[in-house]
């Protein structure tokens, strides 16, 4: 494995913009890498060779003509989660029901990437409609974790995360409803960021749970994630929940953080998410990795204190009511009438029959399970006890965050209770699968930004562990600053970058 695929997005961009290497060459190198390893990894559902090269050629021509690059990442290849609509490529959401569907419109994120000259290599694998924590719920087969291909890469943005760890793309876009960017980031040793709810437009993001879904950047370094963050974020009049606020200066924060000085920064360790007495199901190696990461932050000058968020212990339950409820409504549109898989239309069956048949065959088990749970939770007799109560818990979780942020600038926890688990281990045990999102869910419920940055390898199984950093709404810059400082200290202490420890594929 050699350059250019081992370079960071920032390095690639600076070489492309300086004319030292062409975007076409960089794009071809990544396409070749995909050709070599993706049979094993299955990170991509669709590779758009032609479109990617066309974009790269335009960027090269632009630079040759002496024009300034369209963006700081113009010409750099990226993997786009298959839940964002693309008018030139299929958008399947990892579901059989949308097999081969080519949307007649682009998501706002897709449009922004195109305007920035980012080279979209293709669409990445995911749990069906983003429901899952392992990418095993894809109708197109699971994605393998490049650190150990018998294990899951996390999910639901497993394809986006694995593509980075396998050097198939320099950066990618994921979406995060309950941890779907951060948890795969942790399990693949990559950086994943869930922005403030409303920070990145949801227009064209096929909805799983509208009040929780958020697209965000995935990369191998904090700076790369920040650069991509600035490209995709910003107000969008097509999304009513998009925030009319300036994008926080995250790239500058990442650069200043990398100077390694966290003096004056107050960091809170969430006791409810830190194992110990609350630590049911936490892997010992994960807790040790977390504890040494906290030590490192202290060494960088941060003031560390423990903070209690008592209602977090109800967050998982609230999430697994709210998200299925919204999904039961959001996925009703997949009814075989206007698009998508139609089964059983024999000329005599009614529309209703065809809808039910098509949905039965078009959806996988987890999607059906959640639709049924959500249908139940919204039913007349159960609404107050389930959906209504879950929304109240959301208020309580948010109050916990607000109280915590009166004491500290950022909160930290492990990103996930365990490292990557073996493929197949939890598929028949939904509750075990759901617990993978234990630490990441509170941030979605409150709508605050949160990210995962690798905290090295677990000393018990040698697999990557993630450090979660959470910030107040629209204060992504403080989160990036801490992450960048930590990332540098981590590599300095280890004497090498984490990715150098990746096994050869």
């Amino acid at each position, binding site marked *: 494995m050699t350059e250019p695929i081992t370079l960071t997005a920032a390095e690639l961009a600076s070489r492309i913009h300086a004319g030292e290497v062409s975007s076409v060459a960089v794009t071809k190198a990544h396409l070749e890498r995909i050709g070599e390893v993706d049979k094993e990894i299955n990170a991509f559902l669709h590779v758009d060779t032609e479109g990617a090269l066309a974009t790269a050629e335009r960027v090269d021509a632009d630079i040759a003509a002496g024009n300034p690059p369209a963006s700081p990442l113009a010409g750099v290849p990226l993997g786009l989660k298959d839940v964002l609509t693309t008018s030139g490529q299929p958008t399947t959401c990892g579901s059989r029901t*949308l097999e081969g569907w080519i949307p007649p419109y682009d998501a706002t994120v897709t449009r922004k990437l195109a305007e920035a000259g980012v080279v979209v290599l293709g669409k990445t694998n995911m749990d069906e409609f983003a429901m899952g924590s392992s990418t095993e719920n894809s109708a197109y087969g699971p994605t393998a974790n490049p650190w150990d291909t018998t294990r899951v890469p996390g999910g639901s943005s497993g394809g986006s995360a694995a593509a980075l760890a396998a050097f198939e793309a320099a950066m990618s876009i994921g979406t995060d409803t309950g941890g779907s960017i951060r948890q795969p980031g942790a399990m693949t040793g990559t950086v994943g960021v869930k922005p403030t709810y409303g920070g990145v437009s949801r227009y064209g993001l096929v909805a799983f749970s509208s009040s929780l879904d958020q697209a965000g950047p995935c990369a191998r370094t904090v700076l790369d994630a920040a650069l991509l963050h600035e490209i995709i974020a910003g107000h969008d009049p097509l999304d009513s929940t998009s925030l009319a606020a300036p994008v926080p200066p995250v790239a500058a924060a990442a650069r200043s953080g990398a100077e390694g000085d966290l003096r004056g920064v107050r960091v809170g360790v969430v006791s409810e998410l830190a194992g110990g007495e609350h630590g049911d199901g936490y892997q010992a190696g994960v807790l040790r990795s977390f504890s040494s990461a906290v030590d490192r932050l202290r060494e960088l000058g941060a003031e560390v204190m423990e903070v209690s968020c008592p209602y977090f212990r109800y967050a998982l339950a609230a999430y697994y009511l709210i998200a299925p409820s919204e999904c039961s409504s959001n996925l009703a549109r997949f009814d075989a009438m206007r698009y998508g898989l139609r089964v059983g239309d024999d000329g005599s069956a009614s529309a209703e029959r065809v809808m039910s048949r098509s949905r039965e065959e078009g959806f996988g088990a987890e999607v059906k399970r959640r639709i049924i749970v959500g249908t139940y939770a919204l039913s007349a007799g159960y609404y107050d006890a389930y959906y209504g109560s879950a929304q109240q818990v959301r208020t309580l979780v948010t109050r916990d965050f607000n109280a915590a942020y009166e004491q500290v600038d950022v909160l930290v926890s492990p990103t996930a209770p365990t490292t990557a688990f073996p493929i197949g281990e939890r598929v028949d045990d939904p509750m075990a699968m759901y617990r993978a999102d234990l630490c990441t869910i509170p941030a979605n419920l409150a709508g605050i930004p949160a990210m995962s940055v690798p905290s090295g390898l677990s000393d018990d199984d040698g697999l990557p562990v993630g450090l979660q950093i959470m910030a107040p709404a629209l204060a992504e810059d403080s989160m990036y600053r801490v992450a960048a400082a930590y990332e540098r200290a981590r590599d300095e202490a280890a004497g090498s970058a984490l990715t150098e420890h990746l096994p050869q594929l």
Partner: protein
Amino acid sequence: MTAKAESMSDTMDYEDVVANFDPVLGLEVHVELSTATKMFCGCPNAFGGEPNTHVCPTCLGLPGALPVVNGTGVESAIRIGLGLNCEIAPWCRFARKNYFYPDMPKNFQTSQYDEPIAVNGYLDVELGDGETIRVGIERAHMEEDTGKSSHVGGATGRIHGADYSLLDYNRAGVPLIEIVTKPITGTGRRAPEVARAYVTALRDLLRAMGVSDVRMDQGSLRCDANVSLAPKGSAEFGTRSETKNVNSLRSVERAVRYEMTRQAALLARGEKVVQETRHFQETDGTTSPGRPKETSEDYRYFPEPDLVPIAPSAAWIEQLRATLPELPWERRKRIQAEWNLTDEELRDLVNTGAADLVAATVDAGAPVDDARSWWVQYLTEQANSREAELAELPITPAQVARVIELVAEGTLTTKLGREVVQGVLAGEGDPDEVISARGLEVVSDDSALTAAIDEALAAQPDVVDKIRGGKVQAAGAIVGAVMKATKGQADAKRVRELILERCGVVG
């Protein structure tokens, strides 16, 4: 099917109904707003058009698409609420009403549930004899319309027995306001009349506000009538039926009356009224049951997460209140005073549905008496012969005012004016377009008239002698001949003047 078996013999005589039962009404009216765009996307809100050409990812319910609220739609909703004397909610939300139906692209309707924008108002409704009844308004809320399905195959092209259906989503997402009355009680035998008068008053109000076309024939105003009966004197309401497909004011009255007689017959036989949706049959004035509801109707409402709450400020509401036009009943009071009408004259005007139209015609520049006579006489005849409401005639007050103006200035005779009105009603365009297309202008060129007059005079020398002898009334025969020769396109008054002139008599 039971609907077929049910016949008029299954109804009770109306006098017996009102002697034994108290009817309770509830009316739900859906109004399509006449905004430029749909409620949640920028597609044009236009009637008709090639199928699936006023659509976008949002109103087609494509995966990933999101709604954004039309601000003008909200303003219309608030103005309607104010016009109905409602309280405007300081904070409200949209909710999703979840049910599957192919004409609904998302399989949920974006609507309002327990947080409507306007609640607790009333509308004063005047009946034919001048009595005014106050109808309570429960709520007015915002929602979106569905697409349209057409059914192919089978015998009738109707939904039953069709081979397949075709869907056009041009109408999907068009803004609707649903206006729901409180239970209307104590109306007794007048219940059908009250129902019609309410819908009429509501229509007039909405038209005056300019928020909707309020065309029942085109579906921009739709009425569902809930009817139940309680034994005379009982405080408890009976089981209600909900009759849909009531597409004209007359049908509102007929549907309520029919339901009263049908339900009374059931109750008299000791049977129960089934709570169900029924459809009004325009042809025979009966209702028939709709399809049975799903095993259990559970819309699983929850707040729409893709839209943020609406919180109209007091200042905004007052600003909208200031834009309210003169309301129909206020206008009636004013015109009665201004036009010096007796109560009875005003009532006639109101009963023919002409009051607002006359007022609008006066506003467009016509004298009151002319406007009244055109609407109350000629146009009312036209409406009656078409079995249409006066307001449903395809002619505007401005067009009527123009005809009146042309008659007054002598360009048209009254007879020609009527022909022009016929042309407008036939869809030939504005009065001036009809005149030029049909060549209807009065022959006012004296030289052209003189030729016709000379011819007529030459043909009847005896009449000429009579005129010259001082019998000026005899000129009428010549006038008739000239009018005949000019096919009526001459101004009779001018013809008469010219005849007298020719005969050397000064008129």
